[in-house]
């Protein structure tokens, strides 16, 4: 009688929680372990850092000295922090376009080659399996070691160019060449794979139609078919390149620091943050403020970039 009148009320509360056919239970059995971990190791740390960023937290994670926005003010007026953003900008100006052009060029060339496609693809893709630490070691100690026996100086000597101390001088800042070529070598294959996948998704019929319409193969088809068809891939590549450049740490740390100390120049944001939070001071309050400023910056850049690309995409249609 009651079951007909109010079926929901008659069900005990645990049945309601468990859901129809225990679906809610099953959902949490599947998703729960991951989700709890995500809360504990991603969300809570971020909130905790937000809390820490308002305290004077040197060498401690349970501070008592509330300083308000002082850490943010310190960070945003610290010339070293601002110059770390400058270092990132400079690095991005080099690495983003260079990697973009090279990976696109490689993908186009390999896509058009008939023989040994798999070999070329593997050769350029292989470095992505290498760690930045190992690459830094090779770049620092075998290619750009600044000695006459280094590979770069050996090659230059064939052209009568004298020895260059690549990493130990700042004027001219040759270390940029070292850092950019290193990251290019390690990353270009990854983006090449993305472009190759994008190229393979272009329907061949478009090229057939263009040929019928009299488009010349080469520049015209590239400009009016291939590149527009790759727009989504290009957008993804640009966002990934920028975010990855922003997170640069490994190769800077490993090529530039020696005997346990890092030079005062060429500190990208994460290197700067690392030394604030884990250097002599262990200033976790200021480090947290820095982490939050950087996270907000990355988020903003990503959103702006995606919106910009989407708008342009919309405008074209």
């Amino acid at each position, binding site marked *: 009688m009651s079951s007909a009148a109010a079926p929901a009320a008659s069900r005990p509360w645990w049945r309601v929680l468990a*859901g129809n056919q225990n*679906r809610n239970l*099953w*959902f*949490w059995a*599947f*998703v729960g372990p*991951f989700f709890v971990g*995500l809360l504990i*190791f*991603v969300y*809570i*740390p*971020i909130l*905790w850092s937000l809390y820490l960023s308002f305290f004077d937290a040197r060498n401690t994670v*349970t501070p008592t000295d509330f300083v308000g926005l002082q850490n943010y003010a310190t960070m945003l007026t610290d010339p070293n922090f601002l110059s770390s953003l400058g270092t990132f900008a400079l690095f991005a100006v080099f690495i983003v376009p260079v990697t973009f052009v090279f990976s696109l060029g490689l993908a186009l060339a390999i896509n*058009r080659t008939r023989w040994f496609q798999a070999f*070329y693809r593997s*050769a*350029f893709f*292989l470095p992505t*399996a*290498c*760690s*930045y*630490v*190992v*690459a830094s070691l090779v770049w620092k*100690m*075998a290619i750009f070691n600044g000695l*006459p*026996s*280094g*590979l770069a100086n050996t090659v230059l000597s064939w052209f009568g160019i004298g020895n260059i101390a690549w990493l130990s001088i700042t004027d001219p800042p040759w270390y940029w060449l070292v850092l950019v070529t290193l990251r290019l*070598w390690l990353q270009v294959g990854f983006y090449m*794979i993305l472009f190759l*996948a994008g190229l393979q998704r272009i329907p061949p019929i478009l*090229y057939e139609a263009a*040929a*019928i319409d009299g488009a010349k*193969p*080469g520049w015209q088809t590239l400009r009016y078919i291939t590149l527009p068809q790759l727009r*989504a891939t290009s957008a*993804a590549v640009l966002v*990934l390149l920028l*975010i990855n450049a922003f*997170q640069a*740490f*490994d190769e800077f740390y*490993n090529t530039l620091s020696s005997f346990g100390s890092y030079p005062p120049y060429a500190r990208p944001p*994460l290197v700067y*943050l*690392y030394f604030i939070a884990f250097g002599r001071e262990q200033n*976790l309050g200021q480090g*947290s403020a*820095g*982490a939050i400023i*950087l*996270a907000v910056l*990355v988020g903003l850049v990503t959103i702006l970039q995606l919106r910009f690309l989407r708008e342009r995409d919309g405008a074209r249609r």
Partner: protein
Amino acid sequence: MTSAAAQRVRAPHLSGGGVRQPPLERAGAILRTVLLVLGALLFLIPFYLIIRTALATEPEIAELEFTLWPAKAQWQNFADVFSNSQVPFARALLNSVLVSVVQTVLTVVLAALAGYGLARIPYRYSGLVSGLVLATLMIPAAVTFVPTFVMVSSLGWVSSLRGLIIPGLFSALAVFLFRQQFSDFPRDLEEAGRIDGLGYFGVFWRIVVPNTGAVFAAIGAITFLASWNAFLWPLVIGQDPNSWTIQVALSAYTTSQNPNYSQLFAAATIATVPVLLLFVGLQRFIRQGYESTGSTG
């Protein structure tokens, strides 16, 4: 359209060294091949340098001239790595193997379960949970290293395997990729399983998992590589040399005073060759995994 006609109109984008190619296109094809071959060789040089230096003697490395190949390959260097007095390479290698294997297995299990739950089990707050998971994709992991360190150090996990492994297990990207794959899985097959009396877990374990091996291989291989090559987090958390991974050990030795070059490169070889072989073996899956990463942006 006959196939011959189709062949002719398709020609512009197919290219290659056909017989009736116009000279300009032919020159382009030759130039392209030359550049690709040179580029590919250039890209393999660093691997050659690692092995060459690993097999050389210290005096050969100290020479003024570039040494193309050591006069006699010093295989002894590889054994010497493990008796290095400055850096515990053997322990670091063991740590790396433990961390990478455990991290790969657990990441794949956790992410596959979560991906399936989000893709297939109807739940009122499923959208909210999805949103919270995907939002973490917007936050680059490297920016959260300070917050995560705060958390992990308050748990007392600094310089421990737990501290190295556990914080990295919750990859929203892996969940996202699994969810995408499982959403594309044919529902008919799952329905058939349900009719045969399988529950959610039965369908997942007996029907979905055996038929989506490729995505498991892809995500597993990518996770393993990332875990093996990780540097910033192991550096931050591994404050005691006994908890160093191979990357941290290499870095410590690189930046130390007077490292032994051939031992350093021998250690780098040991750290690189196994993953390189794995990478070559699983290249197809890794490529597919990266391709779907790229298309998600």
